[in-house]
């Protein structure tokens, strides 16, 4: 799962650092992900994991780190 998340981030996150090596808890927005890019990350995650984030999950904090994205994907996949 982490590998897929990192691939999505590398492709759509427009991070200033390498998505494959960035720390699990690093702030992705501080690393250069714009809100525009975060929407693309969201869409790509939904496609990759065949999930749909609920309205409550669609907030900045869900996408602020790889750890929080993982928690979000797990929650949505389980529901």
């Amino acid at each position, binding site marked *: 799962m982490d590998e897929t998340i990192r691939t999505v981030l590398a492709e759509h996150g427009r991070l200033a650092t390498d998505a494959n090596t960035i720390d699990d808890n690093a702030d992705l*927005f*501080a690393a250069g992900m*714009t809100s525009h890019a975060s929407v693309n990350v969201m869409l790509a995650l939904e496609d990759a994991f065949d999930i749909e984030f609920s*309205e409550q999950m*669609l907030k900045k904090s869900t996408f602020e780190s790889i750890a929080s994205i993982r928690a979000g994907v797990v929650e949505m996949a389980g529901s």
Partner: protein
Amino acid sequence: MTSITETTAPVSESGGVAQQMERIAEEVAAPAADEVDVTGRFPAETIDALRADGLLSAMVPEAFGGRGASVAEVSEGLVALGRHCASSAMVVAMHHIQVACLVRHGRSPLLRDYLVELVERQYLLASATTEVGTGGDVGSSVCAVDVAGGTFRLEKQAPVISYGQFADAVLATARRSAESPENDQVLVVCRPPELELEQVGEWKAIGFRGTCSPGFILRAAGDAALILDDPYADLSTRTMLPMAHILWSSLWLGIATATLDRARRFVQSEARKRPGMTPAAALRLADTTALHQQFTDLVRASVDRYQQIQDDPDRLSALGFAVAMNSLKVSASTLVVDVVRQCMVICGLASYRTDTPYCMGRHLRDSMGACLMVNNDRIMANNAQLLLVHRGE
């Protein structure tokens, strides 16, 4: 947080905040409005009158000495100001947007002290969010605050700082540090004596001429605690953007109201000439009055929408709210031009000539600024992006 964002409206002897703003709009701003427009000068008398009544700190909580006015009250006051002098109203709206950001997002003891000082001295705050080289995107910065030894330094090429030369401080956006990406921004209070504004060019515009908005090179330094605590992205989403769209829409409604006033008087004066015959323009007046009512109700509903969730960061950050506030800006800036145009058709040449009481030249020119200040196409593109994931709940 609740303690600093009380919205109870104290009613002083001279009435509430909205009524005081209304009185200043009629007695001070209205008589100067044409001259402010023609000469493109700063509406100093209006700002001085607001200052004298302590209204520049209308939105500061009472705990800090302010009036603790609600968004609804300030919105109502701005409708009145916009009705008589849109330039004055725009200056006041922009000031209150900055004050709201300070109140809700400036938590350092120094910023708290500054808020008290703002109340005592009735400071006027300006803003420098746009920058040369970012293509109009306020969500990214080229410049960065350079923090060393508890002190910050900043130099910013600002293509526009409205009333920059008349302001007591400028709140500027910048990257958090020289190493930060362009969208990792902070908002910092830049104040004299460590603020230098070097004017670049002049403000030669067809509308909002009294806002005096040329470009500046801003050079500032100061205590690093003057940097607002919350990241700009968060304070923009939760406070600056909704407040801007609500308060701008309020004064645009004022412009529309002014032209509707003229159109109504015109139709009534026609009716008096031939009692028993309904003037031809009366039907269009009825139509335009319905349009104006949509506009009024849109602004009021948006104020309610914001006030209901103003202390809930999660709901303020929700996609649906961002979409709604963007839609408000686009709708209101379109409605103001629509109402002005209809009112001009109602009054005919009397609105087109500059020597009649029905002249709408200033209103037409001011109203066109609404869809350009943060271009509607940029806002719609933003909503288009948000709607790719918004669930519509």
